[in-house]
């Protein structure tokens, strides 16, 4: 008897799942690059453009050297601040509050702090559009106070859109690194760990077979 309402239950479960998805934001699932060149270009964007208002409290200038940003560039960005200072916004938080009505959030973890993670971030940067009244709106985060810095809402043609998209990807790539600076080491180490565990498990299986040979010959109980 219990089995009879199982099927309708499962069906209704999946249909409600589909409904829930339709209501949600559709994020742009464009692949975010992971190569060093993109991350470094993104670092420049974040340090020189985003850095006007946003800080990265968990990233110090020395971390940028470790990432591979040239010494002269880091020196230009940090001015007279020591290497082990966190990346602070150029605009004082109080001034930003006065200008925008909100303190711009820290970007250290921004790539993993929203549902959808890197795709949310990219979609947000690319989400500005002029509405019927001519006002610029963001379709991802409608109440945002951040202006359309990359200028996607005013892109004239596909070529320009593509250029802005590339910048947004680089920024996202850099913020992915900033959120998880050991990500690459982790994956590299993971490959060795997997190979080691695989060989170890094979050997353990063989060893087990050898120990159990006599017992296995006894057949089922």
């Amino acid at each position, binding site marked *: 008897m219990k089995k009879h309402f199982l099927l309708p239950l*499962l069906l209704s479960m999946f249909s409600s*799942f589909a409904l829930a998805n339709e209501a949600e934001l559709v994020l742009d699932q464009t692949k975010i690059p992971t190569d060093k060149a993109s991350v470094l270009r993104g670092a420049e964007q974040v340090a020189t453009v985003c850095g006007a208002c946003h800080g990265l409290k968990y990233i110090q200038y020395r971390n940028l050297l470790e990432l591979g940003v040239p010494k002269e560039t880091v020196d230009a960005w940090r001015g007279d601040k020591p290497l082990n200072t966190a990346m602070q916004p150029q605009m004082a938080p109080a001034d930003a509050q006065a200008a925008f009505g909100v303190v711009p959030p820290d970007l250290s973890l921004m790539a993993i702090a929203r549902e959808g993670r890197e795709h949310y971030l990219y979609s947000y940067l690319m989400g500005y559009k002029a509405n019927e009244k001519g006002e610029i709106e963001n379709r991802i985060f409608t109440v945002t106070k951040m202006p359309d810095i990359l200028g996607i809402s005013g892109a004239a043609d596909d070529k320009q859109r593509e250029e802005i998209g590339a910048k947004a990807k680089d920024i996202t790539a850099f913020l992915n690194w900033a959120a998880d600076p*050991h990500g690459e080491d*982790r994956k590299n180490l993971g490959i060795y760990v997997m190979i080691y565990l695989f060989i170890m498990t094979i050997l353990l299986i063989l060893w087990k077979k050898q120990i159990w040979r006599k017992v296995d010959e006894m057949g089922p109980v």
Partner: protein
Amino acid sequence: MFKRTLAWIDQRFPLTHFVKDTAEYGTPRNLSYWWNFGSLAGVVLVLQLVTGIFLAMHYKADIATAFDSIQHIMRDVNYGWLLRYMHSTGASAFFAIIYIHMARTLFYGSYRAPRELLWWTGQGLLLLLMATAFMGYLLPWGQMSYWGAAVITNLFRATPFFGEQVVHWLRGDFQVGDATLTRFYALHFLFPFIIVGAVLVHLIALHTVKSSNPSGLELKQKDIIPFHPYFTIKDLVGVGAYLMVFSVFVFFVPNTLIEAANNIPANPMQTPAHIVPEWYFLPFYAILRSVPDLAGGVVAMGLSVLIFAALPYLDRSRISGGAVYRPVYRAMFFVFLVNMVVLGYVGAVPPTDRTIIIGQVATLVYFGTFLFLPFVSKKEEAFLIKRGLPPAVMDSLK
């Protein structure tokens, strides 16, 4: 020299006796790999203890610095990211293993006499594990940490007469705050050691009643083999396979098990759009939400975890081997598992009219399984005896 030292110790402490007893523990030779999950739970417990203690050396239990100290561990501590990801993934792994361990017990009817105390100590361990995981989840002091703790401690408001006081007593404050964080940290450190003690009790009970086996029958003496080397090596194979699955999560997708909202520092002024517990609490959370009344929901949720303890009495069939020879019990087992998944889904999504109904039906199925079991198991037994069972099973009924 070694022999003399050992003799010296044995005169004063039963070391040889203990090692011999453990190594020679008589184990049924027909145990399947489903019997690996007990030892795996032990391995995960040790990994959690070790990684936890090293994390504790760098963590700061203070609302002003807790979130930053996690980032310090992730970024500046040598292999801190490995410790933290092993610990956060290990929590999920622990529950996955315990749930499989419990499902095996249910499927093979391993909870039945004389294994009631083994089953109940296991139940106690599950409750301790849940409490430990819940308190540990507050420590990163992210948005989900904060609001999860706020929602769950708030449930104790349902306590008759003293609701308000109990909630304040648990939090140490009117709100979840610094007092809550420090006490959760202290208890999160203490509980694992209580778990270690409870595991010893669980193992003593196991060594008294011995392991059950897939046939559910008493095996002949020739089918009982020593634990070592047979099951030490078999458990090691399981550990190898487990570590591979675990490592995939730790090294390649460690963030899938961490809510995005928990990468935002706790903010008491801003409720996240959607508060969800960790996956291992979702079915119970769904049951809580399926009852329209707070007190009723809390009671239903508590009962949904505790009701497993009644199984030795609810299952009245004397036929051995749990689901092996019992088609109706087997069907109920699988319906129960599917129902668990349905409840998990309902617990994960924001409530809508439709999911509320699904949750209520699934809650009824959940408790219905337990309530009908005494009746169904007795009927099934009578039917199966009439239809005929393998001779060994029939003999065990006499």
